[in-house]
């Protein structure tokens, strides 16, 4: 029943805040192992779309499917809460501002949810923390608190925390936007590593170079619609739409 071509499926996603329509009938398929970047000006709805995938922002219309299961199923409140908590275990998310738990060490940040939700023993949890923190190069800092870490280190721990639930899909919401420029690369390296392991990823980003180097597909969004979509070689080098060209020109001028 799992359809690798339609691993993540967004069907006619629509979202309004009152009269303001932030997502207008967006559809998107992501195959298993594919990496999709979403770019666009602020206010284009790209973060809202990402946050709709794990229902942090509920859609007002349309469907989200992951691996053959509908995420935003229409269920009574209590049943829905159970369903969505289960679904979210399969969807890792990394935030712009890390959102590490400041009262826990890196180890506890990684193991809290697996211990609580999957009933891991202390030994299993420790092994998991070591494995995941090693993967992001943070093993030496396993017993540090977030306040003792740099921004890049915090974000790497946050990635380890998401990976510890063994998600099927990873969402990155401007994961490097809040970082000092010299710290961006260490986070990008971790994301590249995940790409090499064929993790399915949807990445909202402002970093065109990074998007071009790791992504299979790029979506350019503006005003709640997908303006242009295609492989990075096309979207970045030969965009067909004026709006895309204008955005890229402004963005590249701003970045350099």
């Amino acid at each position, binding site marked *: 029943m799992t359809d690798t071509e339609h691993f993540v499926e967004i069907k006619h996603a629509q979202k309004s805040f009152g009269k303001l329509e932030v997502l207008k009938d967006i559809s998107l398929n992501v195959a298993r192992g594919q990496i999709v970047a979403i770019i666009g000006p602020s206010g284009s709805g790209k973060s809202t779309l990402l946050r709709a995938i*794990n229902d*942090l922002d509920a859609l007002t219309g349309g469907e989200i499917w992951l691996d053959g299961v509908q995420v935003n199923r229409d269920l009574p409140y209590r049943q829905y*809460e159970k369903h969505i*908590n*289960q679904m*979210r*275990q399969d*969807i*890792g*998310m990394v*935030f712009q*501002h890390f*959102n*590490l*738990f*400041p*009262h*826990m060490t890196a180890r506890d940040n990684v193991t*809290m*949810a697996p211990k*609580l*939700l999957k009933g891991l023993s202390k030994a299993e949890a420790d092994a998991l923390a070591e494995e995941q923190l090693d993967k992001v190069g943070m093993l030496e800092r396993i017993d540090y*608190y977030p*306040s*003792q870490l740099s921004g890049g280190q915090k974000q790497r721990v*946050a990635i380890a*925390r*998401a990976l510890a*639930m063994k998600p099927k899909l990873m969402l990155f919401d401007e994961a490097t936007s809040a970082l000092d420029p010299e710290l961006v690369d260490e986070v990008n390296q971790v994301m590249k590593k995940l790409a090499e392991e064929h993790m399915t990823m949807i990445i909202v980003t402002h970093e065109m170079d990074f998007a071009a180097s790791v992504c299979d597909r790029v979506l350019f969004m503006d005003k709640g619609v997908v303006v242009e979509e295609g492989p990075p070689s096309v979207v970045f080098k030969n965009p067909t739409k004026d709006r895309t060209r204008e955005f890229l020109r402004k963005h590249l001028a701003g970045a350099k």
Partner: protein
Amino acid sequence: MGLDFTVVPEHLDVILLGCLWTIFIAVAAALVSFFGGIIFAVIALYAPWIIRQPFRLIEWVFMGTPLLLQLFLIYFGLVQIGIDLPAFVAGIIGLGLHFAVYNSELIQTAILSVDKGQMEAARTVGLSRGQALRKVVIPQAVRDVIPPIGNNMIALLKDSALVSVIGVSELTLSAQRAIGATYRPFEFYLVAAAFYYVINLCMEWVQRRIERRIAISR
């Protein structure tokens, strides 16, 4: 007639016993007020309307009336409806709930000021709202209010003298008993004051240690 502290050693055993009662009642009431404060705060913020209302009444009673009256109500009043509590238990409940209401106000504000991203991050790894509150939001909120809660606890220690009126032989009542035997009020009240001061110092020391320990994890 000047001060004469030579009468004190003879009655020191009574005073020390009273001191132990004061410490016991203050610590027990502090625990009630701390955990009660958390429970009240969660109810005030998240419980359905129907559950919130009776707690609002409790809150109003404990905030809007004198603690002395509350102690009388719990000790003498409840007997009438068949609940006969030992005086020290009535004292702990009265003091504990009185300060739980104040702690609850502090904790509510602190819960609301925990960054929204914390709840989101906890939910995205699959925690329910209750689990996220318990594991992520409330521990941080409580850390933020340790200093003002500490102030409430010092007020609680001082107000524990009120439970003497329902016959608990704590420090103040013990001092009064010694005075009854010696007619030396100034000396024994001063001795009692000194003991309160020392207990207060100990509480401040504990609070500072807790604050230092959590400083790194905020």
